[in-house]
């Protein structure tokens, strides 16, 4: 009986797929140029969906609940860029700088940095320094980070100047650490120390040069604002996790309660965005690659190619992180069984916090790229969230490879699906696809192992 039903399901699915393929094949043979154009459009939107689905998959397959803040993070990222850049660009039509927003984000950043320091640095230095001195120092650091964020948000015209020292120091530290990791496998002992010391000087020079370069490059402000927005979205994600989800997870194990709570957050943040920026769509300033390139009678913007590249790079980075680092191992362990991970000594709170941060950064990046490609509006968060979710269902929920595949597949189907329908049907097609997949292939194209 069951076997019969499954075979019926399969049969129906095969028939549907064949019908769709035949239809698309027929349309393609009718107008090949237009088909290529649709494919390019599908790639452009698919890359954004893929990016969303990747980050979504990371968070979902670790904590197993739908964090709807994810959508708000996408909108936050896009509006962050708008907030930082709209005063100078776009003819100054949309100048907006709100002291309440600046103070709010400064406070959130200070709180998150304080917690991060408390969770990472405090336990290690506790035995060496007096607790009061240590607390005071860390508190000062956190307050400094808060004030710095406030300054960045208040003076977006000077973004390149304000960020250049931090960028330089960050690059120097990052390069030293990278070289240290690289040398570690080759040599040991004093030779290693000497090598690191030498390379540290070189890294410092590199950092200084980069900082100086940014200092003198006002045109880099747009891209710096991308970084700032992603960081802010990540910081807010962290704050929500540490300030809300941790307690909720302790009290109730039901993912449904978390879902409702995060829905509340999504709606509240959408309303907040509408209040600060108004609810109508807005453009983002021109980014790189606005020139259209023509291939075989169809055109694609350089920026869209860049977006596809970002999606692929984001995928590879996450793949590397999950498969080849100890952090990734911890993430996968938590995804398999959180209790046992705790028992074997993984600091689950910190690891999950990092996962939330990365997830929010991915969402923000997707929001920014989509915003530059088309436009931004407060409810874009919900739309992107739904598309990211559909993409991960199509690809196979919880599977990273499935997520990127699902993103591009969804993008393509959306485009080709409305060939003979009016444009308004695009979202309907996405949801029909979702229903079909939930009915016939609930585990998606590439099921999680």
């Amino acid at each position: 009986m069951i076997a019969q039903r499954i075979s019926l399901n399969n049969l129906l699915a095969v028939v549907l797929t064949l019908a769709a393929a035949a239809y698309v094949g027929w349309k393609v043979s009718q107008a090949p140029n237009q088909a290529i154009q649709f494919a390019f459009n599908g790639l452009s939107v698919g890359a954004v969906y893929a990016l969303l689905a990747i980050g979504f998959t990371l968070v979902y397959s670790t904590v197993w609940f739908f964090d709807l803040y994810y959508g708000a993070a996408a909108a936050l990222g896009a509006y962050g860029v708008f907030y930082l850049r709209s005063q100078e660009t776009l003819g100054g039509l949309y100048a907006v700088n709100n002291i309440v927003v600046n103070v709010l984000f400064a406070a959130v950043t200070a709180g998150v940095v304080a917690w991060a320091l408390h969770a990472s640095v405090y336990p290690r230095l506790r035995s060496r320094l007096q607790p009061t001195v240590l607390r005071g120092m860390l508190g000062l650091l956190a307050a400094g980070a808060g004030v710095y964020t406030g300054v960045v948000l208040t003076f977006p015209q000077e973004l390149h100047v304000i960020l250049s020292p931090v960028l330089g120091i960050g690059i120097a530290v990052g390069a030293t650490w990278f070289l240290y990791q690289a040398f570690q496998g080759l040599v040991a002992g004093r030779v290693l120390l000497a090598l690191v010391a030498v390379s540290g000087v070189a890294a410092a020079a590199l950092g200084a040069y980069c900082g100086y370069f940014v200092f003198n490059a006002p045109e880099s402000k747009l891209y710096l604002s991308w970084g700032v927005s992603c960081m802010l979205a990540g910081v807010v994600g962290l704050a929500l996790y540490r300030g809300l989800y941790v307690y909720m997870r302790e009290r109730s194990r039901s993912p449904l309660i978390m879902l409702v709570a995060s829905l509340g957050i999504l709606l509240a943040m959408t309303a907040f965005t509408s209040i600060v920026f108004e609810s109508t769509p807005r453009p983002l300033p021109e980014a790189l690659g606005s020139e259209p390139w023509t291939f075989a009678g169809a055109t694609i913007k350089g920026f869209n190619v860049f977006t596809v590249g970002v999606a692929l790079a984001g995928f590879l980075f996450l793949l590397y992180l999950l498969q080849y680092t100890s952090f990734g191992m911890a993430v996968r362990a938590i995804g398999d069984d959180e209790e046992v991970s705790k028992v074997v000594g993984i600091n689950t709170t910190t690891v999950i916090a990092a996962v939330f941060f990365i997830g929010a950064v991915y969402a923000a990046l997707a929001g920014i790229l989509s915003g530059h490609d088309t436009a931004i509006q407060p409810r874009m968060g919900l739309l992107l969230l739904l598309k990211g979710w559909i993409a991960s269902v199509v690809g196979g929920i919880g599977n990273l490879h499935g997520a990127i595949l699902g993103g591009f597949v969804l993008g393509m189907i959306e485009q080709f699906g409305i060939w003979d329908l009016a444009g308004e049907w695009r979202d309907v097609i996405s949801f029909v696809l979702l229903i079909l997949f939930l009915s016939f292939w609930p585990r998606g194209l590439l099921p999680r192992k």
Partner: protein
Amino acid sequence: MRILTWKRVILLAALALLASLVIACGGDAEMDAEKDMEEAALPPFKIGVMESLTGPGETYGTVSSQAKQMAVDEINAAGGINGRMLELVIEDSKCSAQDAITAYNKLTDVDGVKIILGTSCSGAMLGAAPLAEADGVVLFSGLATNPDIANAGDYIFRTALSDALLGIDMGNVMWTDGIRTLATISETTDYAEGVRRTSVAQFENRGGGVVAEERYGSDTTDFRTQLTKLLGENPDALLIAAQSEFTGGTIIKQVRELGYEGPIYSDIVPVGATALEIAGDAATGTKAVLTDISPNNAKGQEVLANFRERYDYVTLAWFIGSAYDDVYITAECLKQTDDDQDADGIRDCLYAITWTGAIGENYTFDENGEVVGLSNVVVEILPVAERTEENQGYKVLGSAPTE
């Protein structure tokens, strides 16, 4: 029994509170009235304003309400009307019939106005017009252009030119330029749909054909799929009828990004300052049929200069002039009737008036409340480098050709 006693105590306390509030408020009101009587012997004339201050029509709604405020301040600075000040009560009608009705009810019920200047969107105008007509409230718009407004009623006036005229001009311009096949993309609003319908009707009258048409909702941001479909039909030209500057500008940008190099025609909205900022160089060469304040119109240029000085920007110049004239025309009628509650008097005055203001000379209103004596012009968008605040980004090619 005990519970009952408690209830009574609470009830009594509540009653006492209410009574004290009533007394306190009554006292305040009396005092306020006395104060008003002392301060000004004559209360100001109150007229309502409804414009789309937020939402898709915010650009022109905002310009329009700012121009009206400027006109009112000028009138008041010059001593008011018959010694009485003029006061605007401004409400946001967004760009929808529903919000316009809410705003209308607030203005008539709460503020008790009998003259309303507005509103900016045709859909909103068509929503509020039946109510105004039934209540005998004058509804006087500087911006709403849908042809159906002509027959909306006896109390409905406008200085905006009907889309029927715009459509005829647009159809003729496209035909004269040698366009034979057309693709259209329009926003699903009363105004944009009106522009599309009337333009296409005239274009088809002349012998042209529409090969593809697409429609979109006001909050759409990605038009590439729809545009790809339109371009797949290889039309001679693309006609854009948009309600919001944002979508108009975005369509122009995205269609050029898709590699389209043919001509683009549009109404005034996709060539507003915001739309041009979004579209950038993609908009260069776009032809639009619109109403414009001629450089030779001294009064109009003076108003624009004052507007720029006051608000530090100018966009949609004709809308500024139109809104500005509406206030002065109303002020002239108020001078004659000397009563802001006499809607019938104002209506009769409007039917009889001949006005020379910022948007033109010696224009009048016909029996439908439609403005007579103004006309459209054809403009072409300049390259980004040549766009200035003075030329608003376009050069005027002249009046629209006729058959």
